[in-house]
């Protein structure tokens, strides 16, 4: 969807959307200068509205929260992939990795 539909769905002003993009809280899909927002961006927008609205987080707080959240998701993605990869190994290899990981905690 384009800017106008995005703003209408979330009931926000265009200037607020610009601010979000400027802060990189939202990174629209941009191709040949045309930017498109997806369902994931809508969900992200709702999260931002939750943070600044009912949860009372200020602009700097949202900045920190979104950065950490992106790190958490990236980390979860990598960890998930790693877990999958380990699960496909022999039982013996799995056990050795787990032993070592627990040992070095």
């Amino acid at each position, binding site marked *: 969807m384009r800017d106008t539909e995005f703003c209408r769905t979330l009931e926000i002003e265009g200037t607020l959307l610009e601010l979000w993009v400027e802060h990189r809280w939202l*990174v629209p899909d941009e191709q040949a200068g045309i930017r498109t927002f997806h369902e994931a961006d809508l969900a992200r927008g709702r*999260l931002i509205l939750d943070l600044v609205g*009912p949860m009372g987080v200020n602009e700097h707080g949202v900045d920190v929260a979104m*950065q950490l959240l*992106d790190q958490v998701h990236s980390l979860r993605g990598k960890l998930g992939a790693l877990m999958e990869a380990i699960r496909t190994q022999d039982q013996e290899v799995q056990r050795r990795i787990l032993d070592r990981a627990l040992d070095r905690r």
Partner: protein
Amino acid sequence: MSRSPYEVLGVGKDATQKDIQSAYRKLAKKLHPDLNPGDKDAEDRFKAISAAYAVLGDEDKRGKYDRGEIDETGAETPPRHFYREYAASGDTAGRYESEHSFHDFGLGDDIFSGFFSRRGQGQRQAKGRDAYFSMELDFLEAANGVTKQIHLPDGPAIDLTVPPGTRDGQTLRLRGKGEPGLNGAPPGDARIEIRVRPHPFYKQDGDDVRYEVPISLSEAVLGGKIRVPTLDGAVNVTIPANSSTGKTLRLKGKGLRKPGGGHGDAYVSLQIVLPEPPDPELKAFVEGWTAGKAQAARRHMGG
């Protein structure tokens, strides 16, 4: 859903709207599904408190609920998809991926280096990150503006224009001088935080500048025109006759340029300086000056 919204939020029936809001806020921060990516339970509990707050947070609806006109579910809202669902399924095409946070895991020849740096399709575009720097400037350079040649790492020297009235702690932005973008996307910006070195006599006070200006005894007694330095060059200032040390003159518009336009003022505090070496004629005069001896200079201090 048989629990009453009051129970869900953990407040009494006599709670004020403010109590209800703060109870919701507390629970929402703890239970928001996007802040608890892996916790399935959090979503159900968040939905429950949100539904409860949808009823109790609105005084109108709360009244209707209290009177039994609506049930605890209030109005039906379409099911909401939380961001974590998209982030988990990789639906964001890597736009929000935070590759930089893995730089300490597997770099160089480590077989995992590819694992931590490989991105989704390898074709996505992303604006480069902003690069952060800091620079020290003399007080007058910041006050009057200056063009400085700076060297960013791995780049040619570039001219940084510091606008007049730049303050300590202010950040200047060089568009497109940050880290390169991915796959043809624009680069990030360089952000340069300015540190202003204190000046030996100009002291900044908001938009104004304060400093002391020495005057001779004859200038103090007789008054007259003197040359006074300001941020952007000396100006003629008329001092009234019989000016004591500490007398402050305001030079309008001679302070720092304000961010929104216009200038602050300069406040010049006069300081009488006696002749060096001492002048025998002055000494002889003051010795015979009876009114001077009778002056009670410290009367206001009770002396």
